[in-house]
């Protein structure tokens, strides 16, 4: 049908899966947890987003009509990925994979909330 659309979709697909691959590659390649955390939480998320976009276009292209449902997948991923990343960092800090820097207001004693848990595992 529309060759341009087809090439666009193909590109989106390749870019998307490229990001997915790079995100996972980061897991393998990078040397510490916090560096690895960056790959999947965004490269992969974005990659999936691209693939979903391609999927919307593809299903429209093959004549299934324009379904925007895939947006929801992206939406949910965007909502949930930060939660995962946040909790995983908390866990990593908890078991002492890395030390936090001191809080900027640590000397002023203005800490009323939770003390950062410095205890190593």
């Amino acid at each position, binding site marked *: 049908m529309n060759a341009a659309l087809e090439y666009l979709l193909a590109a989106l697909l390749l870019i998307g899966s490229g990001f997915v691959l790079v995100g996972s590659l980061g897991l393998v390649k990078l040397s510490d947890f916090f560096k690895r955390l960056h790959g999947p939480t965004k490269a992969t998320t974005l990659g999936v987003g691209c693939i979903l976009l391609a999927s919307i276009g593809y299903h429209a292209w093959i004549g299934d009509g324009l379904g925007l449902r895939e947006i929801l997948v992206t939406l949910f991923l965007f909502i949930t990925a930060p939660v995962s990343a*946040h909790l995983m960092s908390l866990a990593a800090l908890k078991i002492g994979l890395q030390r936090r*820097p001191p809080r900027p207001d640590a000397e002023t004693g203005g800490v009323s909330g939770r003390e950062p848990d410095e205890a190593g595992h």
Partner: protein
Amino acid sequence: MRRLLTSPPLSLAVLLLWLLLVADFSPGQLAIGIILALLLPWLAGMLEPERASFGRTIALLALTRRVLWDMLLSNIEVARRILGPERVLTPGFVWIPLELTNIHGITALASIITLTPGTVSAELTGDRRFLLVHCFNLKDADAQVAEIKARYESLLKEIFP
């Protein structure tokens, strides 16, 4: 109306979600969607840990556009870094002092920080005054803090006063 519609944005989200899911705009589905849109936020509202109000929702559009663009750009950056040699990376933590007090705003900021490449929000202090952020490639901590505050927090303060 307030009792019926505990959270209009959430209700709208539910309705949209429903219509997208069923991909059918018939009156029947619309009716079910509306029922759910009224019912579910109310149900969820019973669990709402803390209420916070919305401000200028129009700024949401600007923010969305900015975030999406940043995501795209810096994803490419992260991908390059992952593929490139690791030793040039200088990762590190920074504390971001928060001016936002609205919990939705803080959540949104933390999420955006995580979703935009190069940064992950790692911890929120109990008093909600600081957000610990891990940067993939931290060169100038102060500049990083300033950038985040300028690009996102200012807009968020408008949306979630």
